[in-house]
């Protein structure tokens, strides 16, 4: 079955939760089955084999269900069973609904034997998948949820996100997904959020990654996952926007800003005032541009530090928290105007710092 057909069938299933009427939910299942059947049929015609039957259909339906991981599947199925008019849940609809029920039952009770694989290997894979999942869900608890990354999740087409998410996740598809189903859906959401963040990184760096690119990078990103979480803990406001901040954050930010200025002044005095810090040197060219415009807007401002230091401070602040610059200083327009530039710089800095 072609990848595109598989995705199509998955989408039909994923739609189920968005409908309210039992009839509509059932229609989603039926159209998913139809898509699968069409693909099996065309595959059998092109390979000159017998027309497909249940022997071929059920495994594909199970695979599609695992890949789609539809929201609230169990509840939706029970809901249809209970509230779809019994005189309508007959014949073909009843048959394919039963297939869906049995696919769900199979996934729910999945074990090594059902997958015809070694018991030890199965356990090992399940454990590692669970470790990844639980690690992610605890990490994301104390991670501030930047609205920016939310947006990016919705901006990207679902299929593009869906593919790498699962591929990267599970070295072995069946097992990984089996364990996925044992977990509450929140953990996937956080997962897809952070994945979305990565995707956003990719986009903002100017690349347009294809699905297979994303899949390849998925594994690598997973390795970096811990480091990213570290970044969030160290620089909690790094990806925030002004809308995310509350009044109570202002105190915190002001404090951090003062500390930062103090530390920077001390550091730069210790270094003899001239040596630029590594992050600055990376984005030096952009800093020059920024500084030129800054000079003009800051003409009236009382400056206690010399020009060079001031410029660097602004950059440092930018690294720690781009929004802060915009809020505290008079050059908010400037900060917003060059928002994307600053963010690119930040990322470059971070990439440097975290390898």
């Amino acid at each position, binding site marked *: 079955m072609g990848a595109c057909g598989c995705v199509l069938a998955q989408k039909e299933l994923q739609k189920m939760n968005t409908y309210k009427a039992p009839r509509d939910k059932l229609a989603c299942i039926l159209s998913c089955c139809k898509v699968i*059947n069409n693909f099996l049929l065309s595959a059998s015609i092109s390979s000159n084999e017998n027309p497909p*039957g249940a022997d071929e259909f059920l495994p594909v339906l199970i695979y599609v269900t695992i890949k789609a991981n539809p929201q609230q599947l169990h509840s939706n199925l029970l809901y249809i069973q209970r509230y779809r008019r019994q005189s309508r849940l007959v014949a073909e609809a009843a048959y394919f609904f039963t297939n869906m029920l049995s696919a769900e039952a199979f996934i729910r009770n999945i074990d090594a*034997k059902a997958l015809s694989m070694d018991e030890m290997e199965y356990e090992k894979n399940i454990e590692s998948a669970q470790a990844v999942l639980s690690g992610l869900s605890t990490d994301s608890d104390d991670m501030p949820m930047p609205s920016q990354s939310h947006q990016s999740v919705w901006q990207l087409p679902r299929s593009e996100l869906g593919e790498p998410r699962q591929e990267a996740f599970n070295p072995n598809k069946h097992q990984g997904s089996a364990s996925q189903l044992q977990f509450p859906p929140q953990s996937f959401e956080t997962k897809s959020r952070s994945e979305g963040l990565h995707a956003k990184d990719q986009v903002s760096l100017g690349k347009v990654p294809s699905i297979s690119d994303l899949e390849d990078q998925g594994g690598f990103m997973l390795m970096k996952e811990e480091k990213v979480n570290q970044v969030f803990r160290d620089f909690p406001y790094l990806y925030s926007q002004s809308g995310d901040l509350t009044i109570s954050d202002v105190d915190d930010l002001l404090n951090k800003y003062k500390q930062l200025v103090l530390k920077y002044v001390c550091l730069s005095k210790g270094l003899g005032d001239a040596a630029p810090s590594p992050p600055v040197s990376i984005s030096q060219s952009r800093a020059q541009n920024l500084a030129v415009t800054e000079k003009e807007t800051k003409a009236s401002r009382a400056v206690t530090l010399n020009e060079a230091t001031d410029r660097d401070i602004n950059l440092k602040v930018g690294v720690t928290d781009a929004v802060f610059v915009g809020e505290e200083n008079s050059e908010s327009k400037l900060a917003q105007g060059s928002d994307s530039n600053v963010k690119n710089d930040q990322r470059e800095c971070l990439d440097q710092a975290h390898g």
Partner: protein
Amino acid sequence: MARAAGNRNIQAKLVLLGDMGTGKTSLVLRFVKGQFYDYQESTIGAAFFTQVLSLNEATIKFDIWDTAGQERYHSLAPMYYRGAAAAVVVYDITSKESFQRAKKWVLEIQRQGNPNVIMVLVANKADLDTKRDVGNEEGEQYAKENGLLFFETSAKTAQNVNELFYEIAKRVAKAVPLRPGGMKLHRRSQERGRRLFCCSGSSPFGSDDCNINSW
């Protein structure tokens, strides 16, 4: 279960069981497509079929449910054969293993299924007689012992395929009582639901009851 209504139109669910590759699907396809008229192309396709057979005594509409034969899906089977009027257990005469599997199916349905279900043992791929691994007598003997119908068929040559389904249809027609009882009760209760409401339009709280001027 089979349902009858009015002038003996019977709807019957028929479930196909058997190991993978025994030709369950081909058997049904031969039956469904081989008929002079196709009653109704199923809208979704593979694995579910309907076919109407007209007998003297009744018209039978079969809903034919195909099942996945792989051993790993064995535990899911009860969902499929629940409520079936007939169960067709298929094995491949060139495979001893599929015969053993068929015996397992028979045993399971006898134990868990509806006791009135019409059970048929089908030895498929009769055209591959040279590669035969399960003797005709062997299957027939087992069927006799367990009170099953027995057919040796070939989906490829259409041998015995129509006979198989006609025999099932006859049995279904015989099994369904002439006077359906439960259905009528259901209809009546629906009609009773359409009772007229009695709306006199008079309010229990007339203006006299809450006359402010009285005090």
